[in-house]
């Protein structure tokens, strides 16, 4: 879009009409007609009105975008910004009852995107003289990234402190803490997958398989063997890591996209096996799932009002009144601890030879092989470590839910975790946190938009890849590099550790 010539107004109109015609043709079968199930057969309903409205939004939007590029950014901003603000007010206060909320949403989305683009253009025009502003004006994200790298040192500890204090802050009720647990679970999964995708550069589409292995391992160990959560946790992690090695061993010599599809196949295979219930203890339940999974205890103390004979209740021991939120807060701190361990482990291992080897392998496999790095073993370690963290998270999931079934571990779950890593910026730890908060927390707050959640996921994945293929907060550059500065010796490496 940047390279297009500035066109005259009739040309822009023609272009908008063509875009409108193409989108009309695209929309005609699927938007224009709706198949409705009746008792005996399916019937048609017509939605031409909505279809033409949507097509008009697209065509007008295209025209406004061309006008923005042609130097009319300010005028476009005047049209779209009020529309966007109005849409926000409408969503917040429901001023007018909307007959077609989807169409209103589409209009708002288009107006907001165009307004942002027009705003970027006006900033760019204004900043024509100021070189620094010009460099950053076109890319607001770049400005955000510089901001992050400047304050990145404080951001991590501040976020950690907030996470630790969160359950005791005044606004934290049980629902908030529950959402916090959910977000932290995905942050942990994201950090675990980040080892595989972000550091080692292996696209794993079946990550949820290891999550499932961890969950089922914990369920079996606690129900069949009788181990408690803390005894079963390392075993479940080891179990998932073993699966990672077993699955990874034959396939890791494959190239990127083949590997992605094969891991996807493995993920589905594990789900199908669990669904069909192999004859192995409780696994035979198959699609019915496993219930009554024990809750974790605090040094042997249970979080119940009436503990089992011989056991002590947490609330009795500390002389507190029993409240279900105590258990929720305890779960919150377990997952927080697990997430911190994952993060700390990842940050440390990046500085070990194996971590350096992962990044080197991601950048250039052939060069690595020439330098005597064993690609298969290096990849296998990344795969196993990533799987281990998924196993921990899976055990936590099982103990938190108390019930697991194969349906919790479908491909969409893998896709969501991958989306968190990709949107956050592959290899960036802070990015994963932000992406998890937006992608997991967002739908929890906007419940009425939940139906559009996966649509937005897919759309965002495409948009981010097209717009910033390295992710929003990209950190794909290697941790250490050969120095460029002539003052340093050529072989010296600048050990500029990035605060990730």
């Amino acid at each position: 879009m940047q390279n297009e010539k500035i066109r005259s107004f009739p040309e822009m109109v023609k272009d908008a009409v063509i875009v409108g015609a193409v989108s009309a043709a695209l929309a005609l079968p699927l938007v224009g007609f709706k198949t409705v199930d009746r008792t005996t057969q399916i019937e048609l309903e017509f939605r031409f009105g909505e279809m033409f409205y949507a097509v008009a939004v697209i065509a007008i939007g295209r025209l406004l975008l061309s006008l923005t590029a042609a130097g009319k950014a300010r005028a476009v901003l005047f049209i779209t910004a009020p529309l966007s603000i109005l849409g926000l007010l409408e969503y917040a206060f429901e001023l007018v009852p909307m007959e077609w909320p989807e169409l209103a949403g589409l209009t708002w989305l288009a107006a907001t995107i165009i307004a942002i683009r027009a705003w970027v253009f006006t900033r760019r025009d204004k900043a024509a003289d100021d070189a620094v502003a010009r460099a950053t004006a076109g890319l607001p994200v770049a400005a955000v990234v510089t901001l992050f790298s400047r304050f990145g040192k404080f951001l991590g500890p501040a976020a950690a402190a907030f996470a630790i204090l969160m359950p005791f802050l005044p606004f934290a009720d049980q629902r908030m803490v529950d959402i916090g647990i959910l977000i932290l679970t995905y942050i942990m999964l994201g950090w675990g997958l980040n080892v595989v995708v972000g550091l080692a550069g292996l696209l794993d589409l079946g990550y949820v398989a290891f999550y499932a292995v961890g969950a089922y391992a914990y369920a079996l160990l606690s129900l069949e063997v009788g181990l408690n959560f803390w005894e079963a946790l390392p075993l479940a992690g080891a179990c998932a890591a073993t699966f990672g090695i077993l699955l990874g061993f034959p396939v890791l010599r494959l190239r990127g996209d083949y590997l992605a599809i094969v891991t996807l196949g493995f993920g589905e295979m594990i789900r199908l096996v669990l669904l069909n219930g192999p004859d192995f203890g409780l696994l035979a339940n198959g699609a019915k799932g496993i219930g009554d999974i024990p809750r974790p205890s605090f040094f042997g103390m249970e979080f119940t009002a009436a503990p089992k004979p011989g056991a002590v209740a947490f609330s009795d021991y500390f002389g507190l009144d029993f409240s279900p939120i105590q258990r929720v807060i305890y779960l919150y701190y377990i997952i927080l601890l697990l997430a911190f361990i994952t993060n700390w482990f990842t940050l440390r291992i990046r500085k070990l030879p194996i971590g350096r080897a992962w990044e080197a392998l991601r950048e250039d496999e052939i060069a690595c092989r020439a330098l005597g790095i064993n690609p298969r073993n290096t990849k296998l370690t990344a795969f196993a470590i990533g799987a281990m963290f998924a196993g921990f998270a899976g055990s936590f999931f099982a103990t938190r839910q108390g019930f697991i079934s194969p349906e919790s571990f479908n491909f969409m779950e893998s896709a969501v975790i991958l989306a968190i890593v990709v949107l956050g910026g592959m290899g960036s730890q802070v990015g994963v946190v932000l992406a998890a908060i937006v992608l997991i927390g967002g739908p929890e707050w906007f419940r009425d938009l939940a139906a559009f959640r996966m649509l937005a996921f897919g759309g965002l994945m495409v948009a981010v890849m097209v717009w910033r293929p390295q992710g929003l907060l990209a950190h794909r550059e290697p941790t250490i590099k050969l120095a460029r500065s002539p003052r340093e010796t050529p072989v010296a490496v600048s050990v500029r550790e990035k605060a990730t």
Partner: protein
Amino acid sequence: MEYFLQQLINGLTLGAMFGLIAIGYTMVYGILGMVNFAHGEIFMIGGFVSVITFLVLGYLGLTWVPLVLVIMLLTTMFFTSLHGWAVERLGYRALRNSNRLAPLISAIGMSIFLQNYVQLLQGARNKALKPIVSGGVELMTSASGFTVKLGYMQVVIVAVTTVLMAGFSLLIARTSLGRQQRACEQDMKMARLLGVNVDRTISLTFVMGAALAAVAGLTWLMYYGIIDFYVGFLAGIKAFSAAVLGGIGSLPGAMLGGLLIGLIEVFYSAYFSTEYKDVAAFAILVMVLIFRPTGLLGKPDIEKV
């Protein structure tokens, strides 16, 4: 023997459909080196467009079956290939020169988007259609009373697939478009220097792949009488397995691989267990990639520095 023959017929029918989808994967991989993960969704959209076309034709009062089938075929191919074109234009074109993972992730996003787009627009429930072509001939009956049936629909599917594949092979082998397509596959930069419009050729590759997937979607709907927004995921993975089995990048390989995957799936569920038939397809994919990564008819892939 009769049971075997029946499974052979069913397997060939299923394999023909997988072959049609697999061609789209193999062509895109051949020219761009990327796995078009959204191709299964294109197939699913093909099925939905056929349902809607059929209902519209019924609404207009057209009932003569051959005409209905021809119109359905043409409209489905048209609208579905438009979707294939749009997917390439919006999701992949900007990423043509970026790292290997970016187009794949974009394709996964596109696949999730299209699945939910169709689900939101057309509802999450199965769309069931009464059979348009029913009946068949009984080929033979065994002593134990098992009858081998060849449905007319199966004949139509295999005939349409054969005609389309023959026409498509001619298109690639003989026409100037096919020559340009093969030139881009071999060396995109050189083809561009020699005056081939690379963007247009890639777009047309997606259009052709989507048109064939549309036919697969139509025949799938006719054969099973049911379609939902999720059907593209499994069918897409199996067709990709077929493309890999036949040797990715090779057109005859995709057709052969499709037939083999169809036969394997049908025979596996007939003689072993239906529960694990999907696992069988994945297992084949993994085995092929481990023991013969170039597939049955593929060329060895040399990695250049």
